[in-house]
């Protein structure tokens, strides 16, 4: 009894190590940006620098606060966020569907994959003129651009994950006479889940990249519009505020995706490192 207890105690620290706590070690990463920000603030206050083109943190935060208080910021955040959500949704669903198809059916892979690889070589921004001609200058062309950007990493990740499923585990399913459906549900799906989640995260990151691009190219609202507006009116503090908002929004969305998905992949030996 005693030894069993000792054994389980000895094993206990392993799971405790697993979750990465944002505090502690994460805080050290804040030292450098905070120090730089404080130094710049001090330099501007002391009159050593003008801070007109590179606004000090206090002015950026004041601008951010002002935009937030007037409700303007939330309009732009909501606009950008809904574009990313729609584009990410379409792109991710299409990427998973096509990836699953080419991953499981060799014929589909030979038929479709070369074309997709060729399309992938095109920088997504190059589509913009065509999308504007096809879908107009409003939401549809922006969402399409984002969806295209999200599609490729998700497609590649899913197709690669399915192709890489261990044949030996599939054989375990065959020995127990699983139907095709049961095999997909009980072995293929869990096996490809971790790689799919990583692909989705990459896709989400690209979604934010393309929403900024789309909004810079012409929009009446959105964080990208805020950037452009700041440039045209010569308000660097507004540009930096919009950049900050993008960073926070992107990080939050990524954290939500990880939070939703990490319980599904906690069995993974390497999950704590990749997710």
């Amino acid at each position, binding site marked *: 009894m005693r030894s*069993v207890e000792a054994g*389980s105690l000895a*094993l206990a620290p*392993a799971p405790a190590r697993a979750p990465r706590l944002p505090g502690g070690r994460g805080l050290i990463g804040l030292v450098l940006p905070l120090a730089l920000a404080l130094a710049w603030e001090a330099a501007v206050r002391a009159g050593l620098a003008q801070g007109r083109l590179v606004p000090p943190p206090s002015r950026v935060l004041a601008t951010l606060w002002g935009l937030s208080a007037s409700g303007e910021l939330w309009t732009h955040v909501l606009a950008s966020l809904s574009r990313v959500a729609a584009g990410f949704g379409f792109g991710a669903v299409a990427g998973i569907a096509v990836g699953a198809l080419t991953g499981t059916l060799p014929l589909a892979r030979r038929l479709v994959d070369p074309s997709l690889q060729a399309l992938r070589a095109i920088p997504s921004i190059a589509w913009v003129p065509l999308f504007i001609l096809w879908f107009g200058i409003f939401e549809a062309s922006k969402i399409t651009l984002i969806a295209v950007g999200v599609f490729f990493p998700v497609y590649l990740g899913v197709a690669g994950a399915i192709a890489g499923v261990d044949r*030996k*585990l599939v*054989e*375990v399913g*065959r*020995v*127990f*006479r699983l139907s095709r459906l*049961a095999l997909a549900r*009980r*072995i293929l799906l*869990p*096996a490809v*889940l971790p790689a799919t989640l990583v692909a989705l995260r990459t896709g989400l990151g690209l979604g934010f990249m393309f929403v900024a691009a789309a909004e810079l190219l012409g929009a009446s609202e959105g964080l990208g519009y805020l950037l452009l507006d700041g440039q045209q009116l010569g308000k660097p503090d507004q540009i930096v505020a919009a950049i900050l908002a993008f960073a926070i929004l992107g990080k939050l969305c990524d954290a939500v995706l990880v939070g939703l998905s990490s319980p599904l992949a906690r*069995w*993974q*030996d390497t999950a704590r490192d990749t997710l």
Partner: protein
Amino acid sequence: MLILDRLSKTYADGTRALADLSLEVRAGEIVALIGGSGCGKTTLLRLIAGLDRASAGRISLDGEGIAAPHPGVGIVFQEPRLLPWLSVADNAGFGLADLPKAERRARVAHALERVGLAEHAGRWPRDLSGGQQQRVAITRAFVAAPKVLLLDEPFSALDALTRAGLHRHLLALWEESRPTVLLVTHDVAEAVALADRAVVLRPKPGRIDDTIPLPLSRPRQPSSPGSEAAARTILASLDRSLRPEGETDRTRPDASAMWW
């Protein structure tokens, strides 16, 4: 009764893995298939498990032909092949998905108790040692209550002490339902410790060279005179099987190294 009738397997690249292999195994018998590398041991098990098709010949279990995975046949592979996203208990009960939950749980708990893993039921496979993982794999095969259990060198990656422990766990499970066991091994001591009969295979193409009955009582002591004599007989037969046909006395320098 498991009957292998003139089984042959030729792979697409022309390799002849098995040629005209016939064997009858009584219900409840433990047979060790022993031989050097390349004598088609794993191929043979894959055919019986229904994972590959024979090029010629027939496999039947109690009169029923086998050409695809059969509910009466279970297999333990060389590696544990546990599903990393399932707990130990769920892995062990993987083949019981059709049973009601309560019965599945009871069967799994009982079998895990038998192999000494009851307290690990809720853990992930990644937290177990290699020997423990292989015990879960053996449990997974046993709880499905197969009539024939195929073991493909399941202990070959483990150290001698762990292996002896696993032999005990295997026999403990076998005692309960007494399935027919076909054990592929390259370890003479393992054959002597477990089997009722050792079948020595000859390579290229694989076929039966010799059959050695092992009428020793259980539990067996590896150091007992009976065990040692049996091991010597198998070794001599194995040595003979590795010599090319027609060659009588000329010693081949690498022959003795081949069966390790």
